[in-house]
């Protein structure tokens, strides 16, 4: 690990789990051996109650990662400064090790879809997105990680490869990249490109975290679309792509995401243990 990684990454290159309400009690009681806990920032936009009670307790035991889904970075609406204010308050209260958002947009004209919508990858959108990331980083006074999303359509208007878009964004703004290996796999299938080549093209030094997740397959007449559903185990092909990412990008803090049809904590921990085993295997081979 380079010295730059050591500074940029207060979380070790080890496996973490998403912290969800259904698991609060058990995680608090059992303190499982995971490297970090990741939460959706917006789930803590309330002022008190159960979510903050557990996050305060667990935040003293584990490094935290705040993963945002609602900032609508790519939108042409003005950034929601109230949203950003609340994120800043939370950042200052909990001092998470990582703060991340998505290369997407979710709102226009004040209407929110609360989904991660595909951004045309153009010089116009790159300028726009860079300015927004600059603004967020200056308001938060820290580095933001930007995640590659799953998409279900490509826009003819897009002129820049997603890897080039992310690499340039990182170079311009100093933001990090959250490499979601499942999203790479989903997009590679949906848009018929080489997932390995995507991993090889991403700027490894900028990647500060890796996500893994499960997806579902939707069959249409003649076609298949993968949907990033976060509701099932990580499939073998995505584990394989993760190994490829470890080889090309290097070991990074790795999160297994699971948001709906949440399994028992043990199954989630098994997944984290598998990611950890692959990280260790990578180190053994690299040594």
């Amino acid at each position, binding site marked *: 690990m380079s010295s730059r990684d050591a500074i940029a990454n207060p979380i070790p290159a080890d496996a973490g789990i998403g912290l969800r309400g259904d698991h609060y009690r058990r995680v608090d009681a059992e303190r499982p051996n995971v490297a970090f806990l990741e939460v959706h920032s917006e789930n803590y936009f309330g002022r*008190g109650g*159960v*979510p903050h*009670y557990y996050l305060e307790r667990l935040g003293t035991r584990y490094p935290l990662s705040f993963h945002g889904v*609602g900032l609508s970075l790519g939108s042409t609406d003005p950034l*929601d400064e109230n949203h950003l204010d609340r994120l800043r308050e939370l950042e200052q209260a909990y001092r998470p090790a990582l703060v991340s958002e998505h290369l997407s947009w979710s709102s*226009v004209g004040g*209407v929110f879809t609360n989904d991660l919508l595909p951004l045309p990858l153009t010089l116009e959108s790159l300028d726009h997105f860079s300015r927004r990331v600059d603004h967020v980083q200056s308001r938060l006074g820290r580095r933001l990680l930007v995640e590659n999303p799953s998409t279900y*359509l490509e826009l003819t208007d897009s002129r820049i490869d997603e890897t080039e878009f992310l690499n340039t964004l990182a170079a311009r703004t100093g933001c990090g990249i959250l490499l979601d290996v499942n999203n790479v796999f989903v997009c590679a299938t949906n848009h018929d490109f080489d997932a390995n080549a995507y991993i090889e093209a991403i700027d490894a030094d900028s990647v500060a975290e890796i996500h893994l997740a499960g997806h579902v397959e939707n069959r249409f007449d*003649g076609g298949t679309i993968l949907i990033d559903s976060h509701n099932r185990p990580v499939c073998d092909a995505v584990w394989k792509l993760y190994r490829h990412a470890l080889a090309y990008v290097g070991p990074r803090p790795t999160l297994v995401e699971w948001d709906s049809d949440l399994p028992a904590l043990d199954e989630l921990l098994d997944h984290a243990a598998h990611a950890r085993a692959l990280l260790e295997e990578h180190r053994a081979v690299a040594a």
Partner: protein
Amino acid sequence: MPVPCWKNTVPSLREFQTRFVTSLFDDDPPGEELAMGIQENGLSATRRLAIYRNNLLASLTESLGDTYPAIRALVGDDFFRMLARRYVRKHPSRSGDLHAFGEQFESFLAGVDEAASLPWISDLARLEWLYHLVFHAAEETPLDVAALACIEESDHDRVVLRLHPASALTWSRFPLTDIWRLGIHGDEGSATVDLDAGPAYVLIARRKLEMTFQSLLPAEYAFVEAMTAGRALVDCAAAAFEVDGEFALGAFLGRQFALGNITGAELADRD
């Protein structure tokens, strides 16, 4: 390299986003211009957009159901999905924070013809929305009743009590908390509710981590309502006495402190 002439018609980012979101809320197939901007690559633009349309509806329906679990259980998943579908179009989400979504469900339900046979449903929506707000409201340390002893007797008329911020007041002509319990616990409790067993006056309260419904008498409701308006203790008491001349002020106040409902006592300025 010459720019192809169609390039001039490629929508700017703003126009693209406006068209895209409009199409997600529209059941008709997208217009030609939007379809032109989507690579079909084995699957039609309409089909591809439908994935986003379904995701939008599914996630907002789930969010609405998480906020209104009793209504969802009582009306059933199919009817709830129909309600959510209409609600999303009429009152789309206005925030990147999904906790803010669903505030108008009470007023929306009042206008749903198919729900007219469920006269309690709007009141239950109000209860569940307030429950949701109280669940996420700020924590505050309850005040010990001994603090009142420090106040000079000459100042008693200008004492203002502060209600715990994780509190909300509502009432209904129906037995609202019984209906809520039926929805949440289903067959575990009594499987039917006597709709004539109302009215219900309820303080929804979170004390430490526990959500509770405190059942109030009409005079007590009047007292707490005046307290939430920031009125002085004497005025709150007067509001309660107006409803019930026999209102037992001392016992009621003692109970409010014991329940942790009071988090502050200040002296209002003299007029």
